[in-house]
C-alpha cells in the first residue's frame, strides 16, 4: 500500500468518479505502471480508453507528472512510488 495524491487535468477529470480533479488514495501497488493499471480499474468511471488503452501505460496525449516533473525523467512506468507522491495525469489540449 502506498498513499499517493492523484490529479486529473486537461479534461480527464470528466471521466473520474465524481468528476473529481484531485483524489488521495491508498493503492496496493509499487510502481507507477502498476498505479496506472489500478487507477484505470478503480478511479475511472467511464470511457476507460480515454485514460489508458492497455495495462500499465496511459493513452497517447496524456502527460504523466511525478511531483510536477515529467515521468520520462523519473523512469516512466518503472518509477517506484514514495508515500505522499503527487501523480498528475494531464491530457494535452488542442483547441484554440
Amino acid at each position, binding site marked *: 500500500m502506498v498513499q499517493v495524491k492523484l490529479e486529473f*487535468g*486537461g*479534461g480527464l477529470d470528466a471521466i473520474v468518479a465524481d468528476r473529481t*480533479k484531485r483524489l488521495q488514495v491508498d493503492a496496493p501497488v509499487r510502481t507507477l505502471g502498476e498505479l496506472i493499471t489500478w487507477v484505470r480499474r478503480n478511479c475511472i468511471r467511464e470511457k476507460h*480508453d*480515454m485514460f489508458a488503452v492497455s495495462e500499465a501505460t496511459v*493513452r*497517447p*496525449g*496524456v*502527460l504523466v*507528472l511525478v511531483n*510536477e*516533473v*515529467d515521468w*520520462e*525523467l523519473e523512469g516512466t512506468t518503472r518509477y517506484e512510488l514514495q508515500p505522499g507522491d503527487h501523480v*498528475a495525469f*494531464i*491530457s*494535452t*489540449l*488542442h*483547441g*484554440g
Partner: protein
Amino acid sequence: MTEHPPVLFCPDRESVERYSRQMLVQGFGGPRAQQVLQQQVRVLIVGCGGLGCPAALYLAGAGVGCIGLADADRVQRSNLHRQVAFTDADVSAAKVTALRAALQARNPRVHITEHDVMVSADSARDILRPYDVVLDCTDNAAARYTVNDACVWERKPLVSAAAVGLDGQLAVYNHGRDGPCYRCVFPVCPPPECQGSCDADGVLGMVPGVLGVLQALEALKLVMEMRGVGKWRCSLTGRLLLFDGRHLEFRTVQLRPRQRHSCAVCRQVYDEEEATRALPL
C-alpha cells in the same frame, strides 16, 4: 509570400509616443530594442482564432515589425465571444484579412503578411522559413504536429498554447539544443475520440484570451533574446504552464529534454546534422 523590405526606423515623435510606456519598462533595452523589433523581428501566428486574435493584437501593439497570419477559415458568429479582434461586420470574411485590418488600424507601422491557406506538411516549411518564431494558435491536433515538425526542420522556436473549456496550456517548444519539441513530449497523436475541441466541448472566451496574451508575452521575450536586446529571457523553455480557470490556478511543470534518439522528427534532424558534420571537408 511577399518580401519584407527593411523599414527605416526613425525615432520620430510618433514612435516615441506610441511605444513610450513599453520603452520605459526596466530591462526593455530602450529605443535600440524598439528599433530592432520594428526592423528585424518577424513573427508567424498560425491560427487566427481565440488564441491568435489576442496574441496578434498585443504583438502588433508592441511594434513587432512583421507579423505573418496563417489561417484558411472565415469568421463565424460563434467565434466572436473569444476572437475579440473581429466584429459582427467581419462575419464571413477571411480571418487573415479581417485580423490584418484590425492590426493595421491599431499600428499602421506593422507589416502584415496574409497566408490564407491550411498549413500542411507540404507548405508549412516554406511558410514559416522567413520568420524568427512561430506561435501555434491552431485548433486541432493534426495542425499542431504539422507546425511542430516544420519548426524542428526549420529550427524555429515554437510558442504553443491550447485551450478548451476552462483549461489552458502553454509551452515553448524546440528552443535551443535541449528544449523538447512538441513531438518529443507527445510522440503519438491521440486517437480522434480523445481530441477535445472548442467546437465540441465549448470554451469560455477568457481562457484562450489569457493564453493568447501569454503567448504574445513569451514570444516578445523570445525574439528580444534572439536579437540580443533587452534583459528578459523567455522563461518557459522545457516547461509547461497549466491553467485551470475553474479554480484560477496556474502552475508550471518540468518537461523532458529534447529526445534526440526517440523523437521521430528530432532524430531525423539530428542525424542529418551528424551526417553533415561527418562529411570530409
